[in-house]
C-alpha cells in the first residue's frame, strides 16, 4: 500500500473513531461499525462476545457466532458494514454462485447464540472472514446457507468474505 492509498485509509479510520467518540448516550451496541477499519477487528468481535455473555449471564465457552448477511433486525445484535463476498453472490438469504467477482454486502449483524452443538448445520458452509484481499488474517469463520443448486461446487470455489480493510 502506497502513501497515496494509506493516508486516505487512515483518515477514514480516524473519522470512524471520531464519530464513535462523539456519540451521545454512549450506546455502543447499535452502531454500525466498519470492521476492517478498526486497528484490532478481532478485539471488536471478542468485545461483542464478552458484552453478550455479560448481558445474558451466559458462559463465554457456550457462545457461538452467527452472522446474518444483509439483515439488521435484532436489537441485541451488533451491526458491521463493509463486508465483501468473494466468489459468490448473496440472493434470497443464500449463497449463490456467480462468475467469481466480489460482491459488496450491505450492513449485516453479528449475533452470539448459546449452543452446545459443534459443527455447522446441514445446508450451510463454513466460510472464513479475512481481514483483507490478501487472505492472510482470518478474523473468524461463519456458517452461511447455500442454495441447493450450488452443491459441492462452493467448496472448490474458494469462496470467502473480507472485512474490507
Amino acid at each position, binding site marked *: 500500500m502506497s502513501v497515496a492509498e494509506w493516508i486516505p485509509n487512515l483518515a477514514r479510520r480516524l473519522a470512524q473513531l471520531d464519530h464513535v467518540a462523539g456519540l451521545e448516550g454512549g450506546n455502543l451496541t447499535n452502531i454500525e461499525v466498519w470492521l476492517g477499519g478498526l486497528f484490532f477487528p478481532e478485539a471488536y468481535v471478542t468485545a461483542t462476545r464478552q458484552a453478550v455473555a455479560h448481558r445474558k449471564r451466559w458462559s463465554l465457552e457456550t457462545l457461538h457466532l452467527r452472522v446474518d448477511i444483509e439483515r439488521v433486525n435484532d436489537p441485541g445484535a451488533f451491526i458491521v458494514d463493509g463486508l465483501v463476498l468473494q466468489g459468490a453472490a448473496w440472493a434470497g438469504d443464500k449463497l449463490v454462485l456467480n462468475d467469481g467477482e466480489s460482491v459488496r454486502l450491505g450492513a449485516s449483524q453479528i449475533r452470539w447464540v448459546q449452543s452446545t452443538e459443534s459443527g455447522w448445520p446441514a445446508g450451510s458452509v463454513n466460510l472464513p472472514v479475512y481481514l483483507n484481499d490478501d487472505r492472510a*488474517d482470518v478474523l473468524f469463520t461463519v456458517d452461511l446457507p447455500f442454495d441447493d443448486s450450488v452443491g459441492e461446487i462452493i467448496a472448490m470455489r474458494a469462496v470467502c468474505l473480507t472485512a474490507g480493510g
Partner: protein
Amino acid sequence: MLTSYDQAFKTLPKPSIENQDPLYRLFHREGTIGQKLLGQVRKDLADVSKVCEGALKQTNHLRTLMSALTKGQPLKTLFPSKLAHHALFCRHNPSALASIQSAQINVRR
C-alpha cells in the same frame, strides 16, 4: 486531509475502573492508537517540511521517508518507528498484532 483532525479528533475518555463495558474499552483503545499514529505521521511530515527549509538535519529515518514519498514506494519503508510500523502492518501481518502493545510503550517522543 489529516490536518482537519488537528484539534478536533475525539477519543472516548478513559474508562473508569467501574466501567467494564467491553465495547467502550475497545473504542477507547482504538482511539488511543489512532491518536498516537496520527501524532507520529504529523510529526514525520512536519520534520520533512523542516528539512526542506533547512531548519532540521536529515536523519536516516527522514531520508528513508522522503525517498519513499517522492518515489511513491510502499509504506514498508515508511514511518519505521515502532508504533507506526506495527499499526500499519498489523493489517497484513498477524504476528505484528502481539507486538503492538509493547510497541506502544516504546513510542518515539
